[in-house]
């Protein structure tokens, strides 16, 4: 069957065009854009990757990732209370948030099993509801039922956590473990992707299946990285000042590799079967409910870890605000990369991350330069985040309707 490249990728192509126009009108230098982009991708990458498994399992976009974020924030507050600094603080926060996130994931999974077919709206509303409980916990219960005394993180009257908690002792704990300049990081990327590509090429050489040729994208990325290195290596290029948090990227890379591994296991096959057709899965003897709960739990745990990375990068916690928009932003990023509510890949997540955050970066400047008002630029960001979700969902629906019409004509 001949596939129409433009038609299949129209969401991505539309946003590539918009991003290009945005960069042009913002008047920002490429070096500056890349520098900020690297920080933002490191900050938000894991959260976007966390969305992938529920999509595979047919549960749509998991708006309930904010429950994972809440688990992370509760753990972080505990770590700040005990004043455990640096990487050991981060590890402890990870350790504390994981059981919480697993518990939340199981709750959400069971809820979604009862509201089949409306997973997305349910997970969104469950997020709002959980936010209420979260506020109750941190504003009222801490200091009353939980006897906590710590003026550094608590409101002066002794009940409730401060609006903003300083995370200076955790700041950069992961990011600053090992940093490389942008050109050097590109060399690392080229080497790693070349080896992965080579390994795929070697391991599937004997197979006759066309689908086994997975190596190509890895070679392309390795090539692109090598070219970036050549273009940016001169000492007076603006890219030299861009320093890349290698460990954070390694964590995101490992998360992607984990998803790739899951896909080749029995569990991954069950996710896909359940995602494609619950009825067939059930008849074949797969425990559909359990599979869905596992999917949402993995997602919630990854979201918690993602939020810990984000907070340690920011260096402060807005107790009642940091988690609110992470779900929406992550979902917008995933959709912009060409994912839909029924299909999302690691590649789309990464593409979307780059596109969304570039757009996010340049839109205030572009808005100001185009419309002459700095205020308007700020609105642009919100407009972009929600607009992206609306546009890509609408385009998805439109594409499906169009495909139906084509079927009638044939």
């Amino acid at each position, binding site marked *: 069957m001949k596939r129409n490249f433009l038609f299949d990728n129209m969401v991505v192509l539309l946003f590539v065009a918009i991003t290009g126009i945005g960069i042009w009108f913002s008047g920002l230098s490429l070096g500056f854009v890349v520098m900020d982009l690297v920080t933002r991708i490191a900050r938000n990458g894991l959260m976007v990757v966390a969305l992938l498994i529920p999509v595979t399992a047919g549960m749509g976009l998991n708006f309930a990732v904010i429950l994972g974020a809440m688990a992370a924030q509760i753990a972080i507050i505990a770590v700040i209370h005990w004043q455990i600094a640096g990487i050991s603080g981060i590890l402890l926060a990870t350790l504390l948030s994981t059981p919480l996130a697993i518990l939340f994931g199981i709750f959400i999974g069971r809820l979604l099993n009862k509201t089949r077919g409306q997973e997305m709206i349910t997970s969104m509303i469950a997020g709002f509801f959980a936010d209420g409980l979260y506020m109750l916990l941190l504003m009222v219960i801490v200091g009353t039922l939980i006897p906590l005394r710590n003026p550094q993180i608590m409101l002066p009257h002794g009940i409730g956590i401060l609006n903003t908690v300083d995370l200076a002792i955790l700041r950069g704990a992961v990011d600053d473990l090992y940093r490389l300049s942008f050109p050097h990081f590109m060399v690392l990327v080229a080497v790693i992707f070349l080896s992965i590509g080579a390994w795929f090429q070697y391991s599937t050489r004997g197979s006759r299946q*066309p689908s086994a040729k997975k190596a190509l994208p890895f070679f392309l990325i390795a090539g692109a990285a090598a070219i970036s290195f050549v273009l940016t290596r001169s000492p007076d290029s603006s890219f030299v000042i861009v320093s890349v948090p290698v460990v954070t990227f390694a964590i995101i890379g490992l998360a992607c590799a984990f998803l790739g591994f899951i896909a080749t296991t029995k569990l991954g096959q069950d996710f896909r079967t359940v995602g494609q057709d619950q009825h067939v899965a059930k008849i074949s003897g797969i425990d559909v409910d359990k599979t869905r709960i596992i999917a949402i739990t993995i997602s919630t745990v990854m979201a918690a870890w993602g939020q810990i990375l984000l907070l340690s990068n920011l260096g402060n916690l807005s107790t009642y605000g940091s988690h609110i928009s992470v779900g929406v932003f992550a979902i917008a990023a995933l959709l912009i990369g060409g994912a839909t509510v029924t299909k999302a890949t690691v590649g789309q997540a990464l593409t979307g991350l780059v596109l969304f955050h570039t757009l996010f970066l340049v839109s205030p400047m572009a808005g100001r330069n185009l419309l002459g008002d700095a205020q308007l630029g700020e609105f642009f960001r919100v407009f972009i985040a929600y607009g992206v979700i609306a546009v890509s969902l609408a385009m998805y629906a439109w594409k499906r309707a169009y495909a139906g019409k084509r079927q*009638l*004509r044939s």
Partner: protein
Amino acid sequence: MEHDNYVLEMKNIGKLYSGNRVLKDVTLRLRPGEIHAVLGENGAGKSTLMNILFGMPVIHTTGGHEGEILIDGKVVAIDSPFESMKLGIGMVHQEFMLIPGFTITENIKINREITRPNIASRIFGPALKSLDMEAMDSDARKALDTIGLNIEEWTKIAGMPVGYMQFVEIAREIDKADMKIIVFDEPTAVLTESEADALLKAMKVIADSGIAILFITHRLDEVMTIADNITVLRDGELVRTLAKTETNAFQLAELMVGRKVEKIVQDSSSMTKSEIAVSIRGLKVLMPGENVRQVDLDVFAGEIIGIGGLGGQGKIGIANGIMGLYPAAGQVSIFGKPLALSDTKAAYEAGLAFVSEDRRGVGLLLDSSIEINIAFTAMQMRNSFLHRLGPFSQLAYGKIRKHALKKIADLDIRCTGPMQLTRRLSGGNQQKVCIARALALDPKILFVSEPTRGIDVGAKKIVLETLVKLNRELGMTIIMTSSELAELRSICQRIAIICGGRVEGILSPDASDVDFGLMMAGDYHKFRGKEVV
């Protein structure tokens, strides 16, 4: 009788659904390697019999069944689909149980994947074992080769011709170990002729390997080609079990359809051909499960024409497509004027009205009163029963009440009054409300789909008589779609039989059972090779 000769015996099977007998005293015996055809119309009890064999929940949540089942001479209790799978019973489903986004291999091996352990699975349990795609591919290849399907095992199901999908289903069943009996549920219904031929060949190969086959179908020529023995069911009862050698297609057609017809209209032949009321050319409707492929039909003014055929062949789709409820294409004209398809409003304006087969779903507002239900469509389409106050409108309750009372009397709707909720009415009275609602539009042409589905015998007759009265007294053209051939034959002047989304032929209600049977099976032209009416 030696038990050890039979791989499967179903003895004196019976089944009641809440007091309704759907299956009575049916006995079926199957030898290894035998191809046994089960023949019958819709509602003859074929699917109930298979549901029993498969231990489907629908049987056990409604009180189980009568009779016993023996596998290899041993009595077994099949109380779940898994139990039947364990006993070596496989099923090739009519609607495909395949996942379109998966490859053939993945579908064949669904939840029976071959895995090998890795580091993660040793720590976290067997769910994380790696899939052994190569072993799975080679198993799939073997199964595909057995049935002679020459297609790469890593092809995705989506976009594949339906014929191939059928083969993948079969491959999945024969790939299972210890398969003793495979049930083919109308496997050729969706296939082209050459695909069907290939399928029959594959069935032969499977049977020769010692697996017994139950072949559920209504295509007589296929039965005559391939079956060793034939069981005919009608109205839940066993009509006959015959060996192929002692019968022929004509006899089978007669056995399948045969039934006494009670005529309500006596003078069906006196109809003179008048003006063409509805002309349908190249109609195509996308209605899931009832796709219409290419229907050409002329309906004359003032007649009652029946549209019959087996379930899933597309007869239901015709009225739904013309009324704009499902996407449709083609040319339809009403009294010479072309009708815009996919536009329900235009259909009403052209003088059509529709009594839907889905009475409780789209036919009625179940939680509204009888009078509102009767007036509802006319309010929407004609602005009748309304007071107009500038841009606003208000219900004219007086008019609605008067109209409803008249219709309740005319159609003899048994109710406590026009305010009663339609949910509380019996099926027959609900149907009359539907008809009254359609009549409120003063239609020239009335589409009626499955008017007697789910209503009791007495009410059936009244509904049919109502239709005849409308036709006689108001000169209304009626296009009646029904799965029950007997009721079509009782009131229609002509009956168009739909098969495979096309008009197979048009028969007079007095035509023989054999002709009806052959036409519904889609074999009429093969055996008779001549046109009638």
